[in-house]
């Protein structure tokens, strides 16, 4: 029996195609998450009211922000899930090594994030259309909805979702490396939250600052650079720390 010559790229592509089929359930949970978020958003994603004694105004916001936030959480949790033993061992049933397993996972997450990002972005229009058709308003205030902003929005949404994917992935990988992280990570996060809530001691990592680093970036290009660098670091770290890990 002759030996097969290996082509890493080809194996990655096969693994990726395999995962599109095998992890299709990830899309089921995406659908459930987004539909739930849409239902939550039907009553408005936020509101404001003010009054001067004669006129009471109350505005209800409609957009897809909650759907996007839910999708980010979905990406985080799904990414942890595909690092677990059950999913990893599926890969090793067929042809793979640790590197191709990770890279094909990343490709899958990329594909899932693109789908999730586009649907999350467009779900805002569904909410607005429902509000337009079914709620009896006299006037609707609309901020400018440039068609080009769909492109900007979809791009940045995808990047946000990928960011959460990468974060979930590296956390999941750490747990595979050592179960100690099941305790260490929550302890770190909760401890940090308390430190942040208290005024006297400065937290180890100021989550607000971390969030600020991304959400206050007003240039889409710089934002993409920031997120790309972050996810590159997180995914590389994941690949690096598990390359010597035993499986099965």
């Amino acid at each position, binding site marked *: *029996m*002759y*030996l*097969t*010559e*290996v082509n*890493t790229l080809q*194996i990655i592509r*096969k693994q990726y*195609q*395999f995962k599109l*089929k*095998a*992890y*299709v*359930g990830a899309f089921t949970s995406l659908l459930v998450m987004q539909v739930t978020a849409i239902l939550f958003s039907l009553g408005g994603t936020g509101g404001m009211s003010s009054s001067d004694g004669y006129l009471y105004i109350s505005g209800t916001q409609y957009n897809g922000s909650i759907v996007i936030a839910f999708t980010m959480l979905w990406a985080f949790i799904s990414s942890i899930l595909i690092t677990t033993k*059950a*999913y990893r*061992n*599926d890969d*090793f*049933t*067929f*042809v*793979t*090594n*640790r*590197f*191709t397993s990770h890279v094909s996972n990343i490709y899958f997450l990329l594909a899932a994030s693109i789908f999730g990002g586009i649907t999350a972005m467009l779900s805002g229009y569904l909410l607005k259309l429902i509000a337009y058709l079914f709620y009896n308003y006299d006037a609707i205030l609309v901020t400018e909805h440039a068609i080009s902003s769909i492109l900007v929005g979809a791009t940045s949404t995808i990047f946000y979702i990928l960011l959460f994917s990468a974060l979930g992935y590296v956390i999941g990988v750490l747990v595979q490396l050592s179960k100690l992280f099941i305790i260490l990570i929550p302890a770190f996060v909760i401890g940090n939250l308390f430190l942040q809530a208290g005024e006297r001691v400065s937290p180890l990592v100021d989550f607000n600052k971390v969030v600020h680093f991304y959400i206050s970036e007003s240039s889409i290009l710089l934002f993409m650079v920031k997120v790309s660098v972050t996810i590159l670091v997180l995914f590389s770290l994941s690949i690096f720390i598990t*390359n*010597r890990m*035993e*499986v*099965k």
Partner: protein
Amino acid sequence: MSVIKCEKLTKSYGENKALHELSLTVEENKITGLIGRNGAGKTTLLKIIAGYLRKSSGNIEVFSEQPFNNLKVSSNMIFVDDQMNFPTALHLKELLYVAKDFYPNWDMDLAERLFDYFSFHPNERHHRLSKGMKSTFNMIVGLASRCPLTIFDEPTTGMDASVRKDFYRALLKDYIAFPRTIILSSHLLNEMEDILEDILLIRKGEKYLHMPISDVKAYAFGIRGESSAIKEWSSDKEILHQKQIGDGSSYIVVTNTSYKLAKSAKLEQFTISPVAAEDVCIYLTRNEKGDIDHVFNRG
């Protein structure tokens, strides 16, 4: 060409040594039975060969490469055991197509015929199958993938007798048509000894014996006779096994070398019988504390 080459291969978990300075060579296109008791290190050895586990020290080469995390080894090897997991999202039939995609030598025709023969339903899910059916499905994947190195670790777990027979027959037929290196690990040697060429016996992480099955069959002889005569005769022989038989006679198993040495002696008074390969393996891998009877023979 040798497919697997180990030199002083050691795998330790903390203080425990699952494998201890194991050296062996498996030649191309042979069916080797890996025999050993539970905990002897069979699965550890196979997983190191498959590249799942890392060696602790020593050297191992599979297809002349280090197997751990090796894509070439993974591409040319399939590891079938009862822990084999398949994605739960896919039907059995879909799994066959996934396997086809990964293994270039995959024979879909064979897979489908076996699939029908064992009456699998295309829409079933692997994780819902019974233990025996799981093993049967895994076996189909292992056979149809036609990997240059095919490893079956306890492949018959849960299979009923007739499926086991079918399996060994299918394995042999496919091996003859498409020779490849196959390692079968099991503790049920007797049912597969007909198809094995070599036997690799390991005991407590060490290689004990590696020889053609025909040599194993001639490795020892059983001798039966009056107890005191047996005792006298065997005093300088290597006894693998001995047993009292009710009527004041004994049965002992001695290695072939001891037997040859003693051929001149008066063996006529004893009944001599061959010992099955499986029994040889049992005697060789038995621990020093004697057999289970010792536990009960306290008096």
